[in-house]
């Protein structure tokens, strides 16, 4: 069981390290891929926590998601290669303070709360997948369907916002 703690901590550190790297590099593609590897490390943490389905899902989804993010960064940023080492931050002191306070508060809660007894054994992976499937199509079906419909709506809405307006209706 020490191995589990070790791997959780290891991948956790990796996730945070890559997370910090996101805002420390000036190359946008590096930034997006750092976020990807941060999310991949989180997926690996899931695997270390024996939530196999979620871990693999996280690893899969984020690869595509962050790559798409990378291309949008390259499209919409002035200096995606980071050659100019542009300053792209504002209200830095306030942000650091907010980040530190927010993170510190969460940390305090994490450390100080008496979490009670911890369950040693997780269900087997195959059993989990099966149970999650039953949950999805049973008790949580409404939530699941709502999420599905919401993402469809968001896709349509985002596309509608992004496509060019017709001539004549163009705002500017």
């Amino acid at each position, binding site marked *: 069981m020490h191995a589990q703690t070790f791997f959780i901590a290891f991948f956790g550190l990796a996730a945070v390290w890559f*997370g910090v790297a996101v*805002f420390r590099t000036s190359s946008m593609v590096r930034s997006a891929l750092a976020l990807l590897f941060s999310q991949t490390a989180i997926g690996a943490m899931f695997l270390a926590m024996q939530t196999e389905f979620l871990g693999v899902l*996280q690893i899969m989804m984020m690869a595509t998601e962050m790559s798409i993010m990378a291309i949008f960064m390259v499209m919409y940023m002035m200096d995606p290669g980071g050659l100019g080492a542009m300053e792209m931050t504002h209200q830095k002191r306030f942000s650091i303070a907010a*980040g530190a306070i*927010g993170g510190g508060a*969460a940390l305090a809660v994490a450390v100080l709360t008496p*979490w009670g007894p911890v369950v040693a054994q997780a269900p087997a992976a195959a059993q989990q997948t099966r149970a*999650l499937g039953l949950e999805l199509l049973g008790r949580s079906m409404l939530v699941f369907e709502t999420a599905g419909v919401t993402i469809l709506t968001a896709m349509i809405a985002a596309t509608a916002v992004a496509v060019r307006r017709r001539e004549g209706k163009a705002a500017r």
Partner: protein
Amino acid sequence: MTAALIAALVTGAALFGVGLYGALSQTNLVMIMMGVELILAGALVNLAAFWRFLHPGAYAGQMFVLIVMTVMALEMAVGFGVATARFRAKGSVEMEEAGELKG
């Protein structure tokens, strides 16, 4: 065993802090979205840890993780939709230049 839970929660807290810093400090819409993604990732880690170490019998916990992943995807879709529209209209997704969006 509790150490594993704490390790996961500490990671979650750190990701939240980094994400919050990023979301507040960046001037570019896409970079802000990255910060938000990190905040949500922190939430993911916590949810998964709670499920695994406290209530491995309650699959609603895993369900919750799925929902947060959906929200991340949603945020991306809507964010890029807005970014594209802004970029088309103004040629910029910089927050400093979105002054007219203020109330």
